[in-house]
Structures are given as structure tokens and as C-alpha cells.
């Protein structure tokens, strides 16, 4: 598995194991809109911190195992995958933003809007890394 594929899988997994539980808990126990809601802020801070540690630590570990490959600049295939995955992520984020900005305020407010925006970002990021990881996997050839 190439260095960039490992990184894409890592980012995808880090997002799933941190923001997945965050949104699950938030859905099961919706936060109140009374301010300041430090409990919800703390929950988000813990999630963001855990994500940063997992993604950052994982990236450092993968870098140390694949130093030579990690230092190579992106080639035309990497750039093509990056371009396509970013395009999909852009349209995902655009759709999420339209949903949160135009339709969600009709019936919701406060933390629902905040978490809706956060969900749009997380889904867009996951779409990018998921598409990149799948592309690298699909194009993986043999022989070392």
C-alpha cells in the first residue's frame, strides 16, 4: 500500500472513530440551546482533540515508516486523484452548506445548526479521503 493511500485511510478512520461517536451521542442526547452550553463545547473539544492526536500521530508514524516515499512530490496520478476527490468534496460541502444555511434554520436553531455545519464538513472531508483511498486501492498494481 502506498504512502498516500495509507494517509487517506488514516484520515478516514480517524474521522470515523472520533466524529462518529460525537454525532451518535449528540443525536441520542441533543444539546440544549441555553448559553453557554459548556458541556457540549467540552464534548466537541474532546472530539477535535482526539481527532488531532489520532490523525497527527498516525501521520507521523506512517511518515517514519515510509520516509523516502513520503518525500516524493505528487505525480500526475496523485494530482488527478486529488483533483477529483476535492471536486466531490467541494460539491458535498456545497450541498451541506445550502442545507444547513437555507433549510435547517426554518425549524432549528443553536447547536443544531452548529452540528449541522460540522456534519457537512466531516462528511465532505470523509468523501475526499474515501474517494482518494478507493482510487488508490482500485489502481494498485503489483510488483515492488
Amino acid at each position, binding site marked *: 500500500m*502506498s504512502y498516500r493511500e495509507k494517509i487517506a485511510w488514516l484520515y478516514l478512520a480517524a474521522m470515523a472513530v472520533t466524529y462518529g461517536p460525537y454525532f451518535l451521542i449528540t443525536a441520542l442526547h441533543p444539546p440544549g440551546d441555553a448559553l453557554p452550553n459548556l458541556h457540549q463545547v467540552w464534548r466537541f473539544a474532546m472530539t477535535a482533540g482526539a481527532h488531532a492526536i489520532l490523525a497527527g500521530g498516525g501521520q507521523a508514524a506512517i511518515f517514519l515508516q515510509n520516509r523516502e*516515499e513520503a518525500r*516524493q512530490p505528487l*505525480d*500526475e*496520478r*496523485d494530482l488527478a486523484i486529488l483533483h477529483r476527490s476535492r471536486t466531490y468534496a467541494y460539491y458535498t460541502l456545497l450541498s451541506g452548506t445550502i442545507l444547513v444555511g437555507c433549510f435547517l434554520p426554518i425549524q432549528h436553531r443553536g447547536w443544531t445548526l452548529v452540528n449541522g455545519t460540522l456534519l457537512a464538513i466531516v462528511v465532505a472531508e470523509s468523501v475526499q479521503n474515501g474517494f482518494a483511498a478507493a482510487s*488508490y486501492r*482500485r*489502481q*494498485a*498494481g*503489483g*510488483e*515492488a
Partner: protein
Amino acid sequence: MDGPLTNKVRTLRFLHGEMSQAELGRRIGVTRQTIAAIEAGKYSPSLEAAFRIAEVFQVPLEEVFQWRAEGPEKAAP
């Protein structure tokens, strides 16, 4: 991405002293994984990369890459 574009990169590497994918990649400016993907027919290189590969092996482009137009019999459902 199996398509009508095929190539003889693996054969040409063999004929050039079993040149490694990494070496070929280094000479044309792409990664070993990209060469592996090209050989497996899972990635179609840019025109520039294709010409660079042909240049490395000192052969015309059409000797490295072959393209076959889809016939009408294949286009039928």
C-alpha cells in the same frame, strides 16, 4: 479501468535488463505505484508521460501503447 488502451511496458522493462518500476518511474518523473498502475492498465498516463516512457525505451509511442477503437459489435447492448 479496463479499456481499449493496452501497453507493453512490462515487456519493454524486461527487454531493458529487467529495469525496475522504481527506476522507470524515476526516469520519467512519476512514482513506482503509478508505473504499476499503468502496467496493470488501471491508469492511463498523460500524453507527456507516455512519450517519456517511449523515449526511455527508445521506441515509437505506438510500440509502447496500443489503442483499439470499440467496434459496432461491442457497442450493441
